[in-house]
């Protein structure tokens, strides 16, 4: 691979674009494929198969050829509401995973740069904050404040936008009350049941890093579970 190609791959990953690397295994020549951008003459003859790999987000060698396709998908967006202690560990655990995390907390003391260095922090109420983030069914929500004023609007947004994972921190009792409020707000039982509450898989621990680990485990498991 040419150094120049390596550099543009890294650049494209940084800029969060979707692309594929196409390599001719016999010559070692490689190029970058992007939607709506022309391929080289040599690769153009395989464009249908390349697009097929790209669409299904798969890697592999095109049948009966020496062409290898490697697709790069966008990281999954994870919105963490509540810049609390657990969130600090959560961010730490998620570093080696392909998650793009945004933290929302209207409370300035919590959502500080000092507590979350190099993180995207939105120091606003959820309804305002969600205007700044493009969300869809590939987005996950981790609600950690267990304060209805902050968590509820975020949960409502996530349910409406059909996030693939929605988790909310709080005891069983807290969660029952939360479900009741959402019901009163017009959400169906079916929708409300999509919320993982109390959040996380059962690990047994109660410390902040242990809860963060149980949340991350559930998040990864749900990432592979659906679709």
């Amino acid at each position, binding site marked *: *691979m*040419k*150094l120049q190609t*390596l*550099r543009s*791959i*890294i650049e494209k*990953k940084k800029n969060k674009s979707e692309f594929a690397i196409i*390599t001719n*295994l016999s*010559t*070692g020549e*490689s190029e970058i494929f992007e939607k709506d951008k022309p391929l080289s003459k040599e690769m153009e003859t395989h464009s249908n198969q390349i697009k097929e790999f790209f669409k299904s*987000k*798969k*890697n*592999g*060698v095109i049948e009966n050829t020496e062409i*290898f396709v*490697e697709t*790069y*998908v966008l*990281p*999954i967006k994870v919105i963490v509401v509540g810049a609390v202690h657990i969130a600090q560990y959560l961010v730490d655990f998620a570093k*080696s*995973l*392909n998650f793009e995390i945004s933290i929302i907390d209207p409370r300035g003391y919590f959502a500080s740069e000092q507590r979350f260095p190099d993180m995207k922090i939105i120091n606003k109420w959820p309804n305002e904050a969600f205007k700044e983030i493009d969300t869809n069914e*590939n987005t996950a929500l981790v609600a950690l404040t267990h304060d209805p004023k902050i968590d509820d609007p975020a949960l409502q947004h996530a349910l409406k936008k059909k996030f*693939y994972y929605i988790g909310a921190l709080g005891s069983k009792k807290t969660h029952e009350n939360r479900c009741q409020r959402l019901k009163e707000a017009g959400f169906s039982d079916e929708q409300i049941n999509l919320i993982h509450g109390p959040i996380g898989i059962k690990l047994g621990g109660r410390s902040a890093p242990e809860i963060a680990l149980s949340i991350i485990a559930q998040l990864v498991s749900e*990432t*592979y579970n*659906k*679709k």
Partner: protein
Amino acid sequence: MKNSFDEKILEEAHDWVKLNQKVVLATVIQTWGSSPRPTGSRMIVNEKGDFSGSVSGGCVESAVVRECIGLIKDNKPCKKIEFKVSNESAWEVGLACGGEIAVYLEQVN
């Protein structure tokens, strides 16, 4: 849903290049049967034999390192190697899981 858990291996390769090291990318391009790591898994190797990342569960990495050093020495741009089921009674490199993988080596130049 598909989420390629990004290991930042290409970023690391770039860091190595910046340190004037010769770098070979080793990528799993095909798998048959039960293989430890999926297609697209990658490791990088420099001329000293330092490596990062993986193409299997530790089964064939040492052989890949040797091949990569050879590629640098012979100044070849690329090479394809295949690994099959290991013979447990012999001290040879192979995949204990019974699968097969093809690994593509290419120099960064």
